[in-house]
């Protein structure tokens, strides 16, 4: 029973260590072959557990894991054509780069000559040729990561599993290594499953982003979909860049709802996923922070939603200025104003402004 390709299917995966709390609570997911898939979520959401179950270092309490169409539950890691890259890299400190990379071949009984050749080829691929004889302690973090990658990839796995590979690096290095991972994935042509808690990282490299909370998948899809069209409050808030506001439907007009709250009047939001909502319902809706325009009260007007507010804080972020306004109920209201626009007529803390947006940019949340 050979695993032919790196497509993965998780069917009804449940994991519980003590019989009561479920670390993974019913996960169903399909990942096509050769995809770069990121599992995104806070600590404890179950993403690492799922990774380890795919790798074979843990077994699911219930459910099936199919790799390349075959159910692999119960198989040892080496039989699954998967390879794992550990968070701490776990490079063998007593072996040099070449021997670390060749380790998998060594335990399979491959001869010394052949091992060396294969390892050197791999070292070329990750561009570490001059460092082949160094010990891990003599390498930088980025170099160690490349060794860990090469070590995992040498066995020709169909799926590479990465457990928070960039968390140990500092900001600049992280951005650099991100591209390295992307490149490797395309080069090797296999499925990568990458676990992280950093949203920007996930949306930067993933073909598929899987957002998780408390053992369940909240939303899975291409990065743009998840970011621009979050389905619920959790995903919207986790991915960032969105204002999530709550209000009560005053009335329905056609395919839109008119929403009110103590701070807002007549905010029009297309019904979207809440097609069955009726007047009186409390709903959440999202509007991207960079879709919120701020104008001084004297200028106001138009088709757009108008929410009067006051500037509470201003943070310069380079390309844009983050303007934090008074809360709507318990929700933050934040506008990202392009810096050139902002500085034509800069606001100060305490200024009264009108926040507005186009109705089509709003999105009803589940």
């Amino acid at each position, binding site marked *: 029973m050979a695993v032919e390709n790196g497509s993965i299917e998780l069917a009804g995966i449940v994991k519980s*260590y003590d019989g009561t709390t479920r670390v993974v609570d019913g996960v169903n997911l399909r990942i096509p072959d050769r995809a770069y898939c990121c599992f995104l979520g806070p600590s404890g959401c179950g993403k*690492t*557990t799922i990774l*380890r179950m795919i790798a074979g*270092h*843990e*077994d699911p309490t219930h459910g099936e894991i199919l790799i390349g169409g075959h159910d692999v539950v119960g198989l040892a890691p080496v039989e699954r054509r998967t390879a794992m890259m550990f*968070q701490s890299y776990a490079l063998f400190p007593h072996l040099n780069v070449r021997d670390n990379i060749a380790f998998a071949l060594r335990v399979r009984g491959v001869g010394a000559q052949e091992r060396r050749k294969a390892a050197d080829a791999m070292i070329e691929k990750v561009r570490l040729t001059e460092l082949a004889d160094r010990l891990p302690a003599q390498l930088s973090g980025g170099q160690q990561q490349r060794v860990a990658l090469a070590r995992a990839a040498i066995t020709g796995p169909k799926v590479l599993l990465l*457990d928070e590979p960039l968390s140990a690096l500092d900001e600049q290095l992280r951005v650099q290594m991100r591209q390295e991972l992307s490149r490797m994935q395309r080069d090797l042509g296999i499925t990568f499953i990458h676990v992280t808690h950093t949203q920007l990282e996930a949306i930067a490299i993933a073909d598929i982003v899987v957002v998780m909370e408390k053992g369940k998948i909240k939303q899975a899809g291409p990065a743009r979909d998840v970011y621009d069209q979050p389905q619920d409050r959790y995903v919207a808030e986790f991915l960032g860049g969105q204002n999530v506001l709550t209000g009560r439907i005053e009335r329905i007009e056609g395919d839109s709802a008119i929403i009110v709250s103590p701070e807002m009047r007549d905010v029009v939001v297309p019904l979207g996923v809440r097609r069955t909502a009726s007047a009186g319902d409390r709903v959440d809706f999202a509007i991207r922070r960079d879709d919120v325009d701020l104008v001084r009260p004297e200028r106001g007007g138009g088709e757009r939603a108008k929410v009067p507010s006051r500037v509470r804080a201003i943070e310069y972020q380079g390309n844009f200025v983050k303007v934090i306004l008074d809360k709507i109920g318990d929700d933050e209201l934040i506008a990202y104003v392009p810096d050139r626009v902002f500085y034509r007529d800069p606001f100060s803390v305490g200024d009264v402004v009108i926040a507005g947006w186009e109705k089509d940019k709003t999105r009803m949340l589940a």
Partner: protein
Amino acid sequence: MESKAKGGGSSAGWLLILPLVLILVPFFIVPIIGVVAASFVQSDGFGGIIPSFTLDNYKGVFTSGLTYQLYWATLKFSVFAWFFSLLIGFWIAYFLVFHVRNPLLALGLFLICTVPFWTSNIIRMISWIPLLGKEGLINSALIKTHVIDQPLDVLLFSSLAVVIAYVHQLTIFMIVPIFNSMARIDKRTIEAARDAGASRFEIVRFIVLPLCKTGIALGSIFVVSIVMGDFFVVKVMSGGGSASVVGAFYEDIGVLQYPTAAASATILTVIVLLLVVGILRTVDIRKELTR
């Protein structure tokens, strides 16, 4: 990250631990049982035994005034040895951990302290003679500098000499575990205490000392068990002036009084084990060691 290592249940654990058990049983459990058994039989006075159960041996030990004298003496030595080795050992460890800035240097100095441990005990004992003896270096130096007129008798072959020898031998047993415990203290807690205005003595009293409890306990176990079980240090360093519990039953063996020796030995072992258990109650050694 959860790391539930798969593979190999508790049967593997038992297989791995078997050799250890196979050595400890015949060379620890069985001899103890043998000694205990022998303490309940009668001696025929000539090195043989009459197989009959008797409590006479224990009666003899408990009613003999000598027993209490010996235990008193041995306990006194234990306390003194423990106290001074703890005092010196604690401050040496403190110096190495908190005052020596270069960790490599600290390690080096630490090793320098441990090296004598790796040399023969007996050699170390006879080495006191040229130093502490009546014609030894110290006496000569003191006489030459006119501090005293007559050589001090008390430096060698006395109770003082015994304590000196014990402390010399046993301080290292205090230094090692205490050093280990101290090195584990997060330096930032000390810094935080300094920030809050604590003086260095207060830091030692309220932070360092409590966190070293395990090390002190471990060291105490070593010191107490070694002193209580010793006989040749006392014999040599006191010049025969003092005896110890073990020394006494060593003499008994010498005259083939096995059962009485066995009774004495059993009582001593029980006492030492009780002391150790008492110390172990104050700290959870297993958790600390395997942390």
